[in-house]
């Protein structure tokens, strides 16, 4: 092969690329959601660790019951739901479930997955708060 001598102009991606269209933004929010979920899980783990020490646990409760932390938890919850819904949205497109030789439409797979998710969430709720 002959060596290329053509001058080329290299296009660089701007740092603001994710603002270019709503789908890129939705993707970035999905990525960002993991940070909120991580912080929430870490706090939860700390809470479990502190169960051994009554005083430390009470002090910790005072922190998580502060308005700031309640607001953070609400945002983290919203992000967790967003992450879950979009994750199932994407997964439903990837899963190719065949039924009687035909592929089940992604929208139907998504519906099934969300319903299953809701049922499991309800069971967890019963287990934790109703002591079933």
């Amino acid at each position, binding site marked *: 092969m002959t060596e*290329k001598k053509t001058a080329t*102009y290299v296009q660089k*991606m701007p740092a603001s690329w*994710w603002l270019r269209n709503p789908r890129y933004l939705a*993707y970035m929010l999905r990525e960002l959601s993991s940070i909120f979920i991580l912080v929430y899980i870490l706090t939860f783990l700390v809470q479990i660790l502190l169960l051994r020490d009554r005083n430390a646990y009470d002090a910790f409760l005072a922190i998580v019951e502060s308005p700031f932390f309640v607001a953070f938890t609400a945002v983290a919850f919203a992000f967790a739901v967003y992450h879950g819904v979009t994750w199932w949205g*994407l997964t439903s*497109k990837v899963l190719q479930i065949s039924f009687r030789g035909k592929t089940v439409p992604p929208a139907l797979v998504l519906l099934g997955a969300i319903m299953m998710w809701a049922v499991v969430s309800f069971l967890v709720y019963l287990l934790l708060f109703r002591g079933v």
Partner: protein
Amino acid sequence: MALEIVLLVKRFRPELSKEPFYQEYQIPYTEDMVVLDALNYINDEVDSTLAHRWSCRMGICGSCGAMINGTPRLACATFLRQLTRGIVEVEPLDHFPVIKDLVVDMEDFMQKLAEVMPWLIREKIKPLDRGEYFQTPGQIRLYGQQSMCINCLICYSACPVYGLDSEFLGPAAIALAYRYNMDSRDQGREKRLSRLVGKSGVWDCTYVGECSVVCPKDVDPAGAIQRLKFPGSLHVLKTLLPRL
């Protein structure tokens, strides 16, 4: 009075300047014009120095991809009347080095395409007199969608992962690997998977999904990449535990 339209074209003329610049063209407009017609009009009637690739004019050859109003699309399949903005902006495909005006350097993709071996691999080739390899319609359906790829590179322009790191094998090459891996006549699955699970392969994809949105042939590269992650994991397991 005849209708007119304004095209703002990003130009790069290495013989004149190291930097690209924008040039405005005001040309006659008709309802049935696609962006490619406008570019051809400019080239034929207004400014013959404007360079752009095209061939079939009907969404088959995959030559005329460009950023049209910021979205990668085929110029031949984009009607001017579909574009809402007053001025139509046409730029070379994102993420590729520009050779001249709207002409980008495709070499990187061509190399990657060869790496995934987009052809039927047989352990032993059947002699011609033994006839063809038969497939049922169901077997064809497994890869039919991905076989529609026309290598137009529009998916690469939409992929921020490729934009940030051009080492990434990218949507079309992996979709074509999927197409051959799903083909009942092929026996090169593991060979391709070795490349796909390697450096800058399927695991680099974070499923932005934009490649599948912009694909003019509805190939769904994003879906194909995710579907390869499971056989890819099995392949890695097999190499770690050769006797499995």
